[in-house]
């Protein structure tokens, strides 16, 4: 798609100059100039906390700039609310999914512009149209279902569908693919090419560099709130890009490298740290069994909605089960999160916002949240120990925060993810359940996280890895258990762990008929 | 937000209906009489029908408890079937209560109204079914012997007038006084304020009302408010409380402020509850005006007369007046509740 270039020389549709934005203690944007042309896909990249999301929010009326100017179609504008930006023709998919979880899929999709008849919402038509629209995005669900019953990936697709449905001149996408799996990503790219063909400008933020090279025409690289380079995408080499983002020499990066992960020495005879048997949960899990041995990274493969997150939660004791058993280090668990943690398993949840961070608490408090029992004596928090832990992990994971006292909600998405990882690691676990551990984190940090996982596995930790990024899954895992529709449909070991093998396994597995879109029409009022 | 019962009288009574029965003081200014023919009701034999009693406020208020008990006891004594409801200080609820009892088969009603106004729908429903209503202890706006049979109860302004005269007597040299008012919007509280203020104005120019605050007919609030008033008006000589419980609270506050009630500050209350009358006897309180809650005998007598020779439409009961001279005797006789 990158081969079908925008028309150079046309005036930019959206343009900002000299943009400045500070939050208490953080200078998030410093004199940023940025512009997108009609019909171009413009990559906006930078490491976690570089200011990408802030730039987007300033452009779309969420934040007011401290200084600088936003021009839309040549006119200076100051959007007072996201609504104003939307009405002017800028449609945005913000970084975290911003839909209403409790409302139905159809109502989310059409919220604010529902089809009406005689002044009343025409629900039947709305549902019908929702079904059609979503089908185009590969999401086959009953539109009456509450949004939150969908997996994150499907929710993301709904958000994308919603944004694209709006008749916009600029579509801004802040990490749209972070919770999508390959198939959905392809769908998204098709959508993007269609938009592009219609002369719509697209701002695209992602930490997945491959994607950028595939679809983007130009790139703006940000670092520490400043724009460090604007160029045609093809003109910037991958390594250059990374070095620009991270502000390090190319040589450094080569040496540090994207970690080449070696398979770990797994003692096949060792007793598994995690042993899940025949997990059953109505409509979600249908007899899933997984073993994880010390030092082994077991990947869970499958498409969105295959039940990977559910498996992890079930093991953690965070999900009530209809049947099945979980043993941790040979002992049956009491099936509560607290007891699982005591037994030595921890989980990094998939939905950072809903289930991960405590937004109002500080970075420090978030990191040690689960570790409280270990750092308290007689109910009192041992502050020295706490600070040691926090200090260590903030350094080791390079968490970018003004201080440990900063509220977590003020961190960039990627840094929030690192805080959660720190929360898991400071528990000193025997086994880790990682649900999308690198979701939304930048290349540098991603390599670091993968390095950490690898290192931990070397030290004998058992890891269950869920990732929608096939590369990550294939590269990182010693063994991949493939799930489909809540059932184990295959297992790849040793040399079999390849993308092709995974795809074949998935393709050959039979589909559970009941999980296909529902035939009957439901009433959602 | 929670409902506060607007007790116009409370204290520490024995919740029985013995004690001094109500005595009639006067039977209405006009002296109008009413019987079932004049009212347009059918003749009934009370012993054969169901009588409904609608109580306005929570029986956790002793006045209300005694009143309810008195009516229940008298009905039992006369062999009359009684059903009852309690509106818990809620006018809308009382409307519903009355209509409920009509639906349940009550043929005659005794109503202790929560409010003088606002019972129109219930009274209209009763009238439509020719069910006579006797109102007790608070008046209702409307026409006697048409909207309702008549009224039995105390003269609240009269009570307050007596209290004002007592205050003048207690403070012959005059001085600053404070008024603890009942719940805002309560008819009884209003009458007891008006009666007192007017009488003071009319006959005791040397008494000066310097503070007038509501204490919701409640002892704890009475205490709190008095504590504050005593701070801003250290020269207060007398306190008039519109019911006994507020008076008791005031006494507690006066003591806590290091003054002597009955000597430094004169306290006068209304209701004639046991604790207050005891305080009158011991000189802690200057005087107390009674409000007699034992409506049973008079009410049923009125109903019987209604179906016979006729009853007065406005019966004012003679309330006792307790002073140091008669308080001990009243206590010994068990005339207090």
């Amino acid at each position, binding site marked *: 798609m990158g081969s079908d270039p925008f028309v150079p020389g046309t005036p930019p549709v959206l343009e900002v100059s000299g943009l400045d934005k500070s939050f208490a203690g953080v200078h998030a944007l410093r004199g940023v100039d940025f512009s997108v042309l009609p019909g171009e896909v413009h990559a906006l990249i930078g490491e976690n906390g570089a200011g990408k999301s802030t730039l987007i929010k300033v452009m779309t009326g*969420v934040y007011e700039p401290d200084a600088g100017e936003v021009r839309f179609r040549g006119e200076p504008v100051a959007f007072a*609310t*996201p*609504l104003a930006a939307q009405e002017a023709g800028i449609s945005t998919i913000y970084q975290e999914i911003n*839909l*209403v*979880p*409790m*409302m139905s899929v159809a109502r989310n999709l059409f*919220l*604010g512009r*529902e089809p009406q008849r005689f002044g009343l*919402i025409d629900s039947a038509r709305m549902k019908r149209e929702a079904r059609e629209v979503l089908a185009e995005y590969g999401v086959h*669900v009953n539109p*009456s279902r509450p949004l939150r*019953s969908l997996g994150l990936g499907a929710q993301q697709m709904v958000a994308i569908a919603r944004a694209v449905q709006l008749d916009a001149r600029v579509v801004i996408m802040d990490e749209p693919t972070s919770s999508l799996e390959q198939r959905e990503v392809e769908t998204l790219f098709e959508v993007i090419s269609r938009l592009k063909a219609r002369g719509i400008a697209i701002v695209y933020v992602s930490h997945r560099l491959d994607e950028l090279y595939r679809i983007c025409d130009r790139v703006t690289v940000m670092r520490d709130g400043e724009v460090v380079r604007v160029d045609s995408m093809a003109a910037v080499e991958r390594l250059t890009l990374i070095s620009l983002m991270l502000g390090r020499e190319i040589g450094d990066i080569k040496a540090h490298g994207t970690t080449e992960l070696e398979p770990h020495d797994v003692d096949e005879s060792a007793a598994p740290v995690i042993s899940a048997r025949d997990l059953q949960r*109505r*409509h*979600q899990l249908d007899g899933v069994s997984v073993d994880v041995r010390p030092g082994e990274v077991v990947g869970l493969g499958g498409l969105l909605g295959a039940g990977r997150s559910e498996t992890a939660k079930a093991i953690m004791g965070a999900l*009530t089960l209809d049947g099945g058993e979980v043993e941790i280090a040979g002992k049956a668990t009491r099936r509560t999160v607290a007891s699982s943690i005591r037994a030595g398993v921890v989980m990094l949840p998939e939905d950072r916002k*809903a289930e991960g961070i405590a937004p109002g608490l500080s970075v420090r408090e978030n990191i040690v949240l689960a570790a409280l029992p270990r750092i308290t004596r007689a109910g009192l928090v041992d502050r020295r120990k706490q600070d040691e832990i926090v200090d260590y992990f903030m350094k080791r994971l390079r968490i970018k925060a003004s201080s440990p006292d900063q509220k977590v909600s003020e961190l960039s998405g990627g840094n929030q993810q690192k805080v959660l990882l720190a929360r898991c690691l400071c528990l000193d676990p025997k086994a880790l359940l990682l649900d999308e551990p690198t979701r939304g984190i930048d290349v540098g940090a991603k390599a670091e996280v993968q390095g950490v996982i690898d290192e931990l596995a070397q030290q004998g930790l058992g890891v269950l890895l869920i990732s929608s990024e096939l590369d990550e899954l294939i590269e990182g895992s010693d063994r991949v258990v493939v799930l489909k529709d809540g059932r184990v449909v295959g297992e790849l070991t040793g040399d079999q762990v390849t993308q092709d093998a995974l795809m074949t396994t998935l393709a050959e597995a039979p589909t559970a008929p*009941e*999980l296909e879109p*529902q035939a009957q029409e*439901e009433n959602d*009022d | *937000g929670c*409902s*506060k019962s*607007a007790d116009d009288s409370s204290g520490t009574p024995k919740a029985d209906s013995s004690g001094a029965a109500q005595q009639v003081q006067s039977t209405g200014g006009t002296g109008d009489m009413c019987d079932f023919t004049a009212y347009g009701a059918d003749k009934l034999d009370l012993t054969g029908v169901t009588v409904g009693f609608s109580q306005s406020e*929570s*029986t*956790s208020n002793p006045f209300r*408890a005694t009143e309810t008990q008195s009516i229940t006891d008298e009905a039992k004594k006369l062999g009359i079937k009684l059903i*009852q*409801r*309690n509106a*818990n200080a*809620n*006018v*809308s*609820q009382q*409307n*519903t209560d009355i*209509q*409920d009892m*009509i*639906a349940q088969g009550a043929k005659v009603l005794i109503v202790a109204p929560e409010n*003088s*106004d*606002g019972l*129109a*729908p219930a009274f209209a429903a009763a009238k439509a079914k020719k069910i006579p209503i006797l109102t007790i202890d608070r008046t209702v*706006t409307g026409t006697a012997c048409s909207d309702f049979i008549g009224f039995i109860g105390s003269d609240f302004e009269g009570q307050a007038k007596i209290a004002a005269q007592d205050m003048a007597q207690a403070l012959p040299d005059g001085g600053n006084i404070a008024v603890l008012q009942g719940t*805002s*919007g*309560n*008819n009884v509280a*209003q009458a007891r*304020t008006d009666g007192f203020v007017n009488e003071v104005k009319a006959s005791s120019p040397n008494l000066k009302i310097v503070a007038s605050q509501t204490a919701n007919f409640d002892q704890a609030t009475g205490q709190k408010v008095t504590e504050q008033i005593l701070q801003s008006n250290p020269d207060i000589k007398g306190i008039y409380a519109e019911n006994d419980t507020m008076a008791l609270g005031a006494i507690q506050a006066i003591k806590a402020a290091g003054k002597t009630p009955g000597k430094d500050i004169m306290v006068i209350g209304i209701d004639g509850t046991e604790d207050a009358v005891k305080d009158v006897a011991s000189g802690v309180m200057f005087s107390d005006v009674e409000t007699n809650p034992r409506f049973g005998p008079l009410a049923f007598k009125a109903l019987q007369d209604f179906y016979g020779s006729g009853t007065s439409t406005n019966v004012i009961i003679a309330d006792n007046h307790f002073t140091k001279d008669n308080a001990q005797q009243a206590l010994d006789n068990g005339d207090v509740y």
Partner: protein
Amino acid sequence: MTTTTLPTPDAAVDADGTRETRVERITALAQQQGGLAALVVVVVLSCIFSDGFATTGNFQSILVGNSYTALLALGMTFVIITGGIDLSVGSVFALGGVLAAWGANHGGIVVAMALPVAVALVLGWVHGMLVAKARLAPFIVTLAGMLFARGLLQAITNEGSTTFLVPQGSPFLWLGDGVWRPILTAVILFVLGGLLLVRTRFGQSLFALGGSENAALLMGLPVRRTKVQVYMLSAGIAGVAGMLNASRLQSGVTNIGVGYELTAIAAVIIGGTLLTGGAGSVLGTAAGVLLLAVIQNLIGVHLSQYGSSASDLANGLFLAVVVLIQTTLQRVRRLP
């Protein structure tokens, strides 16, 4: 997400929308309308076991006695769905009644009808602005509003001592006269309210606001305007209810409405509306109002003779049992 417990708002479809049997569907309906289910159970039991319950007179009395206070719960439903709360409705109800009665005396039916609504809307607007623009907590804003409206009422009525009577023969009395007029008025307003909630964009934005305010904002909904409107709606309905009630009582009773906000909230919650916002229904609220009314009726019939404290205890127990049943029915799900 700050909430953990979320019932399935669209319970006709299971969390996975699949493999639904008929039994599942019926239980799903009971779960969605726990209040309604409880109402049916209680009414059926009372008809069987409580003498004189199943009479036209009794039903009429229950319905007519609660038709105007039910409106407070209707307004409250909208506010609670946005994740807010309105504690001022009881006071505004009383104020509306007083203003209507005053208006009937001083200007006739038009003033009697318009004045209370206008004043209520102004109060609601102030609530809304404080909540939406100043970003104060609805609880505290409307708590202050409750005090303010009550104070205003007392200031107008000479500390509550003046009760304005609607003149006999005033056409204003027609509004709340009789048995069926109040009931019908309430039914019509509930139906309109239901339509407003599920079939209009305004209604949808209420759900969105309560479900996730941030998302609603970023999806381009007029968040602040909607908030202001919903508080105006609630206060306006309370004003209307007070006005109608004044017509029925033929006077502006000054000490009415105390504690009504709690009854309204209880009815709304029993009806299945989530206090945290984002889910709820007008039908549920109607069921909640009726359930409380029926319980009140039963307590009145069977427990009055044992004194108020026994009634209170029974009332509390009943409420606890009802919400426990309703919560269990609704199978409030912990987010996994």
